């Protein structure tokens, strides 16, 4: 670990157990499905059995006659559309006009038990007029046979296109002219799903005109907004509580039909209602990784310096918008935050298909281009006869610079991360056995999005602190999804007040009690809620110290009062609280965090800017069997620039989890379809890595102390996934001499590539061409001075 620490820190930097570890190892933690309320009814949702159809009728009359059925609702009961992004309000909790994928919700039942509710769903008659389904990017780019999946009045795009974007930063054609070598490649990244161990669940009750809902969501605030809109209730009559969370990875970041449905059923029946999805429903609820087809063309000088890059992507969005309008940008915007690209053209497209909607999964829209760009540069280096690591290294972004698309880079530990993994793995020096190979890749990721999902100028995170003679309580809307955000808040407050994390009470993710935080996605919580907590805690510390100083007679210089070890000056912490409470009355303090404005002078500049980027480098070592095509990963070395590790135990947990998820995506996980249906909506057939599949992981933390992060901290939840996937494909090339330009790398693909290699043709397996897409005219943007670090009101276009 890089030593850069502040010797005066006592809690920050300590690998302490999570604050909720005790509840989690004893079964005491209460997840949404664990909640049972008196008179509670159970809800089941009837979902579409066909991928694309007009709904002619929904007849629940037979279902209503089943004993034990209390209420049945259809789309006419919840006609208002919703969606996570203001520009994509294209979902209904229950659809009554048309269904767009197998799994689209149509009706919901509240009954005395789940079996009765399920029987009632089966008894509901739905009459469909089936429409030709669209199951691939290629089909979505053809003229629709019957009608487009969404109305043109909504999409304002031809074919089944949802979104089109096109930008040019700097003079790309001139950049290509300057190049000594230009290369083009096509890559495909298959979709995959989050597969949280906990199925989504929600429980609602409606008492005296007030709705309360417990849900396994990553963002209570977004559920709050969607419920208010679809139910027509003011926000002050809705309380959303995040139950203990059984895993998200992005999959519980949208508001969902079942949350709206249980609320409506509770309002209708006057009884609490619970809905827990089955595992199959979780596969269809999805919002996972977009399948993305990519084309990239890069010009380089003889020594491997990038002169220009042109990147095109097309995303298979599935049936609804979800976060897709942002996802399409994310496939293009962060290339420049990793490599110094002096001229960059990006054209992106998202299409609708009749599949479960895609959305944000760990890395949101960036693992796909990261995979493509890393392999592409590797190939360029080999074209030039140069060392791929050196070529990448020559193009690393530098700290405290501004990228060609205006993304502002602050701290950057790419060099240190690279040194760590190259040295530890022996990447350059270790002799390979036959069939063994190693691959190296890098990445970057945002520490929170710089722009809110719905436009507003308010803080992205707010923390309220209450201190009295009984102790310290932190109130924050942030949702701990297992990554340990509650522990981070407790660490920061404990550090400032001279306590231990276990001394700090936490009230989080409860819209009645906690100020707004935008939730656990976008790797934002440590940076944003952490900064808010730091501000609130410092204000509180000042009051406590002032009261102690006055009592001790240091009236003029409270700065001399030591805080730590449960004491403030000459007093135990609780005595100090009594002094301060006596002096000031009720002791509260607030902190909030608003990211600075960073983006460039163009529409669409809001996607990509982050107050800080994390950086990672990884080396993967594997064996590949040329007879079976089976790949066995031996070890992964990963170094991550975390800025500062507030709790190294949690950071390493995030990194190891990210490496694991990356290996699943690289080698086996696939959200694939057959005849309009998910090919394997079960945990047995949707293969994910088990204990036996996981190699050893050696992790290095690099601390660059970001100037704007809390104590210098940046993100860890998403970035470390990114470099592992391309490193697997590179290691496979090192092992067998074939390129798999697709994810996942299955044994079938390896064998096919070896067959092609044997015939003396291109040593690759992957997409052969990139389709013609009606991208709009390029929006041309003047690049900034790379040393212009101005933000906010100082920006030239502010």
């Amino acid at each position: 670990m890089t030593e850069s620490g502040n010797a005066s820190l006592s809690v920050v930097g300590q690998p302490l157990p999570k604050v909720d570890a005790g509840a989690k190892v004893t079964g005491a933690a209460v997840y949404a499905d664990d909640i049972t309320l008196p008179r509670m009814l159970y809800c089941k949702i009837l979902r579409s059995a066909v991928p694309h159809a007009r709904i002619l009728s929904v007849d629940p009359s037979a279902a209503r006659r089943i004993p034990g059925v209390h209420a049945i609702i259809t789309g006419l009961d919840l006609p208002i559309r919703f969606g996570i992004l203001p520009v994509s309000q294209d979902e209904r909790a229950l659809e009554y006009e048309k269904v767009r994928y197998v799994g689209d919700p149509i009706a919901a039942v509240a009954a005395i038990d789940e079996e009765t509710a399920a029987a009632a769903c089966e008894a509901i008659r739905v009459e469909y007029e089936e429409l030709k389904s669209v199951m691939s990017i290629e089909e979505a780019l053809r003229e629709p046979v019957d009608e487009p999946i969404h109305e043109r009045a909504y999409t304002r795009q031809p074919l089944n296109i949802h979104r089109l974007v096109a930008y040019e930063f700097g003079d790309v054609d001139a950049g290509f002219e300057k190049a000594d070598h230009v290369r083009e490649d096509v890559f495909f990244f298959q979709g995959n799903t989050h597969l949280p161990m906990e199925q989504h669940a929600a429980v609602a009750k409606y008492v005296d005109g007030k709705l309360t809902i417990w849900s396994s969501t990553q963002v209570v605030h977004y559920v709050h907004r969607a419920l208010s809109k679809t139910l027509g209730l003011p926000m002050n009559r809705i309380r959303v509580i995040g139950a203990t969370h059984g895993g998200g990875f992005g999959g519980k970041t949208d508001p969902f039909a079942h949350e709206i449905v249980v609320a409506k059923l509770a309002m209708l029946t006057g009884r609490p209602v619970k809905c827990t999805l089955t595992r199959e429903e979780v596969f269809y609820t999805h919002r996972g990784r977009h399948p993305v087809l990519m084309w990239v063309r890069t010009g380089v000088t003889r020594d491997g310096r990038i002169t220009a890059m042109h990147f095109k992507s097309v995303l298979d969005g599935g049936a609804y918008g979800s976060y897709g309008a942002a996802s399409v940008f994310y496939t293009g915007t962060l290339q420049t935050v990793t490599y110094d690209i002096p001229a960059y053209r990006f054209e992106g497209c998202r299409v609708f298909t009749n599949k479960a909607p895609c959305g944000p999964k760990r890395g949101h829209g960036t693992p796909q281009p990261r995979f493509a760009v890393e392999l592409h540069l590797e190939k360029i280096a080999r074209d030039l006869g140069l060392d791929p690591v050196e070529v990448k290294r020559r193009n690393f972004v530098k700290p405290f610079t501004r990228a060609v698309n205006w993304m502002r880079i602050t701290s950057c530990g790419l060099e240190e991360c690279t040194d760590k993994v190259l040295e530890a793995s022996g990447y350059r020096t270790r002799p390979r056995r036959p069939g063994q190979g190693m691959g190296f890749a890098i990445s970057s990721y945002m520490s929170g999005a710089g722009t809110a999902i719905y436009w507003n100028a308010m803080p992205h995170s707010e923390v309220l602190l209450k201190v009295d003679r009984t102790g310290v309580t932190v109130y924050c809307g942030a949702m701990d999804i297992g990554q340990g955000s509650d522990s981070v808040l407790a660490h920061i407050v404990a550090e400032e007040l001279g306590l231990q994390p276990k001394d700090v009470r936490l009230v989080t993710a409860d819209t009645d009690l906690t100020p707004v935080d935008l939730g656990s996605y976008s790797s934002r919580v440590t940076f944003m809620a952490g900064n808010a907590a730091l501000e609130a805690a410092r204000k509180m510390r000042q009051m406590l110290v002032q009261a102690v100083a006055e009592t001790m007679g240091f009236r003029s210089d409270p700065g001399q009062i030591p805080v730590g070890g449960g004491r403030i000056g000459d007093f135990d912490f609780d005595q100090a609280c009594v002094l301060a409470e006596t002096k000031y009355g009720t002791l509260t303090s607030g902190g909030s965090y608003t990211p600075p404005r960073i983006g460039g002078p163009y529409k669409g500049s809001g996607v990509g800017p982050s107050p800080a980027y994390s950086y990672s480098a990884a080396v993967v070592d594997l064996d590949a069997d040329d007879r079976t095509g089976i790949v066995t990963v031996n070890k992964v070395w990963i170094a991550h620039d975390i800025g500062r590790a507030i709790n190294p135990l949690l950071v390493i947990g995030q990194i190891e989890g990210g490496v694991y998820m990356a290996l699943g995506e690289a080698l086996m996980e696939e959200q694939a379809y057959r005849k309009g249906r998910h090919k394997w909506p079960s945990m047995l057939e949707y293969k994910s890595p088990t204990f036996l599949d996981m190699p050893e992981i050696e992790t290095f933390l690099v601390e660059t102390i970001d100037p704007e992060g809390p104590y210098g901290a940046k993100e860890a939840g998403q970035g470390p996934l990114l470099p592992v996937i391309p490193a697997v494909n590179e290691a496979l090339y090192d092992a067998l001499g074939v390129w798999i330009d697709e994810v996942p790398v299955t044994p079938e693909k390896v064998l096919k590539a070896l067959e092609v290699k044997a015939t003396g043709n291109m040593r690759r397996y992957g997409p052969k061409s990139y389709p013609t897409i009606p991208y709009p005219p390029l929006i041309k943007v003047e690049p900034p001075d790379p040393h212009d670090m101005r933000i906010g009101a100082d920006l030239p276009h502010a």
Partner: protein
Amino acid sequence: MRNIEREVQREILTLQVNGEHIQVLVPVHKTLLEVLREELGLTGTKHGCELGECGTCTVLVEGKPHLSCLVLAIQLEGRRVTTIEGLAEGSRLHPLQQTFAELGAAQCGYCTPGTLLAATALLETNHQPTRDQIREALAGNLCRCTGYAKIVEAVELCAARAHD
């Protein structure tokens, strides 16, 4: 209290759960998982698939790991069942619970009860398991958060402490 609007056959079942002898009227089609969670209120046992695919609902029957979603409760007349609620001794954590908490082997914690029980059964029969034996014994328990690394380390640490 159970609503009996829907006719289902029920039987009286006698069980020993976490050391307590209990009697419960159970619908004959209910799984052990459902009876534990819904009839006995022992919600520490989780479910990930209810099809025997993920290991999340693992409990011990006569000390051996069982997928509670695949066992009908009425098959267990007179048997001894241990759930996560029965692992600690009073307020003192089981040594495995202690090492899981210390090393961060529980992130979201949803797979943790099942994994802890499977690991408990392993250490009962094999006091000094190798890393491969731990991975083999827990291979039926899926976890999406940890990458399994800290779970393996927690089992190793527990075994090492017991040996000291």
